[in-house]
């Protein structure tokens, strides 16, 4: 992760200008840009061709995570940042998994409570 161009910040004269000498080339950005277009088109295709069930979810989540990963790693330069910053930013959101799980369980409970006690309404 830290061996990409632009990481030899230790030799840089001013920290703020760490990217001055070896920024990722424009060609890389264009490639990622194209890739994001293709991935978006693919997720749109999932809806357009009405893929349903488990396959729909697998495809949507996969394309979503790939897009998010490309944006964070390349466009937001995370791949060239120091480990301390990478971990400080990327680890805390993992806690959201717990929240999603708890709310999923709670939603299921509410749903069946409504079915049982409110008829099919509400």
């Amino acid at each position, binding site marked *: 992760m830290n061996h990409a161009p632009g990481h030899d*910040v230790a030799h840089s004269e001013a*920290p703020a200008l760490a990217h001055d000498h070896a920024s990722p080339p424009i060609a890389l*950005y264009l490639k990622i840009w194209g890739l994001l277009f293709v991935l978006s088109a693919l*997720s749109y295709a999932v809806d357009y061709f009405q893929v349903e069930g488990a396959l729909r979810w697998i495809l949507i989540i996969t394309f*979503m995570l790939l897009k998010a990963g490309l944006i964070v790693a390349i466009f937001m330069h995370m791949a060239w940042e120091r480990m301390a910053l990478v971990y400080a930013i990327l680890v805390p959101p993992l806690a959201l998994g717990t929240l999603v799980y708890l709310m*999923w369980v*709670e939603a*299921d409970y509410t749903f069946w409570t409504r079915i049982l006690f409110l008829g099919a309404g509400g």
Partner: protein
Amino acid sequence: MSTVVRTDADETAMERGGPPQALRDLTADWAGDQEAFCQVHWGKAMMWIFLLSDTFIFSSFLVSYMTMRSSVTAPWPNASEVFALTLFGQSIPLILIAIMTFVLISSSGTMAMAVNFGYRRNRKVTAALMFATAILGATFVGMQAFEWTKLIHEGVRPWENPWGAEQFGASFFMITGFHGLHVSAGVIMLLIVASKVLRGHYEQRGYAAVEIAGLYWHFVDLVWVFIFAFFYLW
């Protein structure tokens, strides 16, 4: 490290006899961020921390949307049909949202290149790319305004809609509204930073501001990726 710094600060403050010790500590602690992420521009670290907190805000919206949607017994309106547009006599599902997605991704592309040209100190190209990003962002907000107008005319309200579960309107307006607000703020920020680039404001202090603006802009695009998947494709 930080304890050493703090003791020094304490002594200096005592020598000066200055009362606002708490304020000094506050400044020292936050300035200490430069030490924690050494050689990372402080503004960049702070923008990342802001974006982290923003991540939790948007996650709260999306998680509460998930909770509501999976606990309602009424059918959820079909996004594919709700957001369909009739173009050339044909109804195309979700087409407006797809176009909005491509517009926002394009703006991320131009922004990434603006950052690159900023660090090469090419002022004109940097500013031009940032203005292009701002125009694409404004286009996105315009399309969102069109979408809102269309849905409001069709009778969608935060408390009701013609197609099914009442919670649809509340989630839709809250999530896309908050995101649209972020895009609008981003457009304003881009215009300010771009005009500063053009005036040569960053020639001495460096072009980190362009990268920081870029971080925010890419984050807005990143959030849209999740909204697109969870709100429109579910």
